[in-house]
């Protein structure tokens, strides 16, 4: 396995920049996830690393080799495609062995390695089948096996779980984590699914409009989102946002929205702005009998253990998570408090996170 370094990576299609100045270093054995909405440039970035897309600017290093001008086959990387891209006219066995054959390995060695991978991924029964005769999950495992059999420097995965149904996706996700941990693989993984990103990545590179907007471990991305976009994209159900003004009264900083006032914790006293965007996650709200913020319930969604309650607070529509045992119907008036330690403030101009002193 090897480390990967992306330096000032840019990709332009004509006049349109789809990847802008991406700088990411992926350590040996690290599982890095590029996550972002569709069209954010994450797949293009991955395709540049594998060599299926040329670079407009920048450098890609794999191990200590500069691979900019190497064809995909010489980069010693394996890719798992979103639609698996299995060779439709070959059996599973030949699919698995194809890369080894392309490298001119002896038939005996190929068979040995194919057998080993087939055992590892539970494909032994399927070796003589054609892709057409496999289920989605089996195809996915073959695609994975085709990458594993090569023992590459880096695994590149382009939304490999997105074509599986929900239950199978969950199970495969776990297996993929186990497999990559066991092999101590360097993995670059692309997904638009923030849950997948959070659960699998050692670090996340959150992308938006061609730029990496935050590069941090999942906990940090969740707890200290770099800007409003990250805060909104990561976490489910998504964070609430509302415009607030910050006033100083009696040596305290007070948040004022159109519907409520709230005293800010001391950790925020270092900020100087008088306007901001307040963000809080639905699970950081708690129902109270008195005080707090008051709102009228518009929609109640039962999620199982919890209910997601949409409220109208002043001009804003907000959502909070409450225990499923709470009896709430639309039209009710509710009062809730916010967890003071879990508030986020964003600049109204550039929507970047305002730092509080509590956080490092």
């Amino acid at each position: 396995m090897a480390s990967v370094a992306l330096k000032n990576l840019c990709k332009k299609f004509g006049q349109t920049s789809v990847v802008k100045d991406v700088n990411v270093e992926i350590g040996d054995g690290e599982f890095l996830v590029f996550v972002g909405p569709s069209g954010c440039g994450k797949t293009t970035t991955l395709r540049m690393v594998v060599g299926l897309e040329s670079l407009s600017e920048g450098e890609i290093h794999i191990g200590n080799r500069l691979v900019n001008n190497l064809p995909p086959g010489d980069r010693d990387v394996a890719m798992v495609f979103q639609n698996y891209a299995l060779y439709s006219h070959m059996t599973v066995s030949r699919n698995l062995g194809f890369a080894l054959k392309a490298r001119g390995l002896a038939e005996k060695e190929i068979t040995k390695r194919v057998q080993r991978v087939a055992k590892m991924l539970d494909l032994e029964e399927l070796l003589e089948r054609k892709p057409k005769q496999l289920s989605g999950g089996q195809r996915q495992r073959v695609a994975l096996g085709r990458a594993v059999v090569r023992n590459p420097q880096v695994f590149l995965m382009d939304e490999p779980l997105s074509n599986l149904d929900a239950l199978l996706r969950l199970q495969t996700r776990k297996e993929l984590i186990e497999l990559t941990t066991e092999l101590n693989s360097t993995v670059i993984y692309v997904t638009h699914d923030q849950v997948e990103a959070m659960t699998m990545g050692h670090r996340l590179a959150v992308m938006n409009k061609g730029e990496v907007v935050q590069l941090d471990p999942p906990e940090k991305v969740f707890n200290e989102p770099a800007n409003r976009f990250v805060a909104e994209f990561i976490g489910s159900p998504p964070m609430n946002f509302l415009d607030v003004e910050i006033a100083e009264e009696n040596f305290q900083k007070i948040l004022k929205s159109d519907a409520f006032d709230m005293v800010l914790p001391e950790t925020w006293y270092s900020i100087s702005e008088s306007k901001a965007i307040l963000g809080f996650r639905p699970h950081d709200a708690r129902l109270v009998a008195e005080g707090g913020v008051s709102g009228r319930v518009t929609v109640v969604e039962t999620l199982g253990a919890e209910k997601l309650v949409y409220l109208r607070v002043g001009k804003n529509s907000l959502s909070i998570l409450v225990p499923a045992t709470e009896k709430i119907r639309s039209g009710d008036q509710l009062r809730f408090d916010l967890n003071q330690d879990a508030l986020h403030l964003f600049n109204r101009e550039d929507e970047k996170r305002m730092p509080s002193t509590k956080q490092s």
Partner: protein
Amino acid sequence: MTKQDFRSRDAKLGFLLVLPAVILVILVVILPIISGIQISFTSQRVVGSEYEFIGLKNYFELFEDKQFIASLGKSAIWVLANGFFQTLAALLIALLINQPFRGQNFVRTWIILPWAVPAAVTAILWRWMFDASSGIVNTTIKGLDLVQKPVLFLANPDIAGMSLTFVNSWRYIPFLTIIFLASLASVPEEEYEAARVDGANPWLQFKSITFPNLLPTLTVLGLVGTLWASNVFDIIWMMTRGGPGEATTTVPVLMYDMAFYGYNISKATAGAIIFLFVLIIFAFVFIFANRKQFVVASETFQDLSK
């Protein structure tokens, strides 16, 4: 209405819809063949003349006719040469213009042109170009000092067959190319990408991805192309009349010559019927031997029509 009723109503509608085609086939294919078989059992010399029933006499005569046996051989060589040359050339051209380049759409559209040119025009055009004294081909290769004397493309019995194969191929290659291009378009791009990542060189990519995908198309073309090539008459007749000597006298040419210049229409018809049976047997054997590919091909065409 029950499900059964719907089905029988669909069946009736289906029958009505294919009826015109069935009638057309009966009128222009089945009836002429039956009438041809009838004529082949008679002694009729020219259309409208008197004749009597002579059974299989025409057939026995043909089997001892060296000219006829020779024409069967000529037809076999003609079909093989055309099939090989056309398929190979069309495949290469298709692979070439399947690569992205400037003006690709223009080339893809206009490559069909030779196919659209009427056979008579093609024949005259190439006779003119192959002309020994003033033809552009001879003046060019003489100008380049490639030959000392003009090449008699159509008058030299050793070359005439090749020249005709070339011209006939020139007509059919565009059509085959279009078919190959359509077939190539159905190969998933991702398989090539996966192969590139797997380090497969272009030849391995062709061998393991392109070719297996083209195989059903190739098989179908193998059958259709053989039948087409077997029946080519216009180009040969208009360029060499089966000559020089009998160098390019394939079965259709001989039959035409026998019927309308040898004034023996019943014997010529018998020859044509024999040729028909040869082709039918070939088609059956070919389809049976390649039945797997035909199934895949029909599935592919169904997919394409969706």
